[in-house]
């Protein structure tokens, strides 16, 4: 069997926090707490989950923009989590990120053409072909020469997002971590970009880690989907299985909360009650037990393990 393009093992990121103004006891925000997964070449792994559950942090560690507290990241079989900055630079080209907040991730003083050309320059793309490449990339994401000479603030939210996508595609990376790449776009452009991402994947055998909260978008683009809750993956399965037969109560609640574009339809929602727990002081046992409609005594005490329940369908829940 072919080795996966990316393999993440027991990845953790704890952000240190000082309680109180005067030092006091040190504690941690457990943003990512023991996450493992693999992504095959040419595959799309979708990642969904509650806001603040650690999706972006996971993506940023994969990109090596953040150092993991613990755990390993293998890229094409090579450990990259311990490489230093110099060593990283050589493989940077292979993975690119589309950032969640397009405004914060584009340099306001750079023209769009320069923003997109930047990775080309960094990675030594021939100068005489640069302009043409930028032109092409703009067209690929549905912008054009008119936009090249403008600054990020002159664009709408969705247009800025497309600049970010063009920049990520510039150097033909092998892996793209796309953090909410289409959430700022209207549905028609969203469809265009999703179709585009699929075309590019086919053409260049690209691999995606696709982070989004829109479950229908994730269903469309992904081969497999992982569901995160409070720093952990609670369910991971082939997309068809996950959507047809969600097992984890949190996944079920998520799927039931998707708004449907039909004003006459009143949906039966699984409303989650209970306080949203904090990643600096996660609940004992299963971290979802405080909000789970099926919580049992065991759930408060024992941490469930991610188990394979049926073919390639993993879930961490005491019900199974």
């Amino acid at each position: 069997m072919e080795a996966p393009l990316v393999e993440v093992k027991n990845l953790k990121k704890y952000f240190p926090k000082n309680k109180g103004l005067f030092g006091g006891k040190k504690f941690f925000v457990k943003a990512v707490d023991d996450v493992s997964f693999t992504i095959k070449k040419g595959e799309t792994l979708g990642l969904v989950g509650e806001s603040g559950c650690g999706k972006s942090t996971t993506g940023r560690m994969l990109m090596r923009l953040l150092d993991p507290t613990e755990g390993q990241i293998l890229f094409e079989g090579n450990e990259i989590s311990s490489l230093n900055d110099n060593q990283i630079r050589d493989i940077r080209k292979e993975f690119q990120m589309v950032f969640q907040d397009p405004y914060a991730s584009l340099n306001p003083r750079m023209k769009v053409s320069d923003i997109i050309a930047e990775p080309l320059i960094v990675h030594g793309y021939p100068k005489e072909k640069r302009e043409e490449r930028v032109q092409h990339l703009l067209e690929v994401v549905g912008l054009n020469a008119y936009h090249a000479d403008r600054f990020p603030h002159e664009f709408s939210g969705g247009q800025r997002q497309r600049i970010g996508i063009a920049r990520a595609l510039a150097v033909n990376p092998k892996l793209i971590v796309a953090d909410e790449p289409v959430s700022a776009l209207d549905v028609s452009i969203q469809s265009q970009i999703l179709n585009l991402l699929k075309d590019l994947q086919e053409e260049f055998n690209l691999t995606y880690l696709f982070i989004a909260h829109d479950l229908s978008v994730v269903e469309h683009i992904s081969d497999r989907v992982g569901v995160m809750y409070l720093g952990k993956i609670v369910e991971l399965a082939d997309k068809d299985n996950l959507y047809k037969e969600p097992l984890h109560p949190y996944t079920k609640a998520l799927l039931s909360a998707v708004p449907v574009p039909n004003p006459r339809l009143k949906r039966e929602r699984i409303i989650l009650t209970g306080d949203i727990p904090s990643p600096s002081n996660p609940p004992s046992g299963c971290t979802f037990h405080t909000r789970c409609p099926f919580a049992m005594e065991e759930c408060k005490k024992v941490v469930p393990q991610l188990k394979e329940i049926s073919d390639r369908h993993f879930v961490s829940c005491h019900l199974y």
Partner: protein
Amino acid sequence: MAEKILEIKNLQTHFTSDSGVVKAVDGVTITVNKGETVGVVGESGCGKSVTSLSVMRLLKDTPGKIVGGTIEFEGKNLEAISEKEMRLIRGNEIAMIFQEPMTSLNPVYKIGRQIAEAVQLHLKYDKRQAREHAINMLKLVGIPRAEEIVDEFPYQLSGGMRQRVMIAMAMACKPKLLIADEPTTALDVTIQAQILDLMRKLSKEGDTAIMLITHDLGVVAEMCDRVVVMYAGKVVEEADVFTIFENPKHPYTEGLLYSVPKLGQKVDRLDSIPGNVPTPSNMPEGCKFAPRCPKVMDICRQQDPDLLLIDKEHTCRCWLYQNSEVLEV
């Protein structure tokens, strides 16, 4: 008869630079009644955010200028009042949730201070009350460890948490009108459901009117009474929510509804409207949607259609309906 709270009439907001004029908003008419939720949808870049910034009079730092039309809030012409008067309205009577939280959160101030400042100014709370109110608001929008978050900086929060801070800030002063620009795009669906619920409560109990800008047509279907559809700086259709979903008239609205990805839909490629939005430097003559319209006729390429009343409380800007029995708006 419903009481109008916001009335935008034929608004035109243009950006002028060396390279020419960008007619970002070029004919937008939107009325929001008391306690009502009006959805605004449309192609990315069609002028939704610029419309709301115009209402809030927040174009000062941009080359943008209102060059035509009027904006009335409770019968008051917002263009005519002083900046001092406007400051009392902004954040208090009209609150706004911005599309990109980082643009409106100050990166060097702690979260608590940013919420408390607004509250102190408008609700006349003292410092301690304001801080408590800030913590309560954060809890209300589902932020865990609110007591800690008030003392953190924006960069320490996840994207969705920043957005909820914005929402907490906007709702903190119980506004009469809430302009929400993509308020839930960075949120997962369970928190989204919770926030939408909160907005619904605000509108029911506080009689707050809401102008909800979103591209999520599921959210529109759930939240809105009426829907305004925009394309290239203009309103192209407006009707009640049922009519928009069940009997849309403008070909752009139809295309938009086709493009919505649905759960359980097994297709290799999603539908989308072919082509791209025209760039400001390259605006077509006539109807701006004509180059992408599947029903385009000769006249569409020559003359811009007017926004006309085609049915009871249903307006549309399209040559297909210009010859039906119509009333000028």
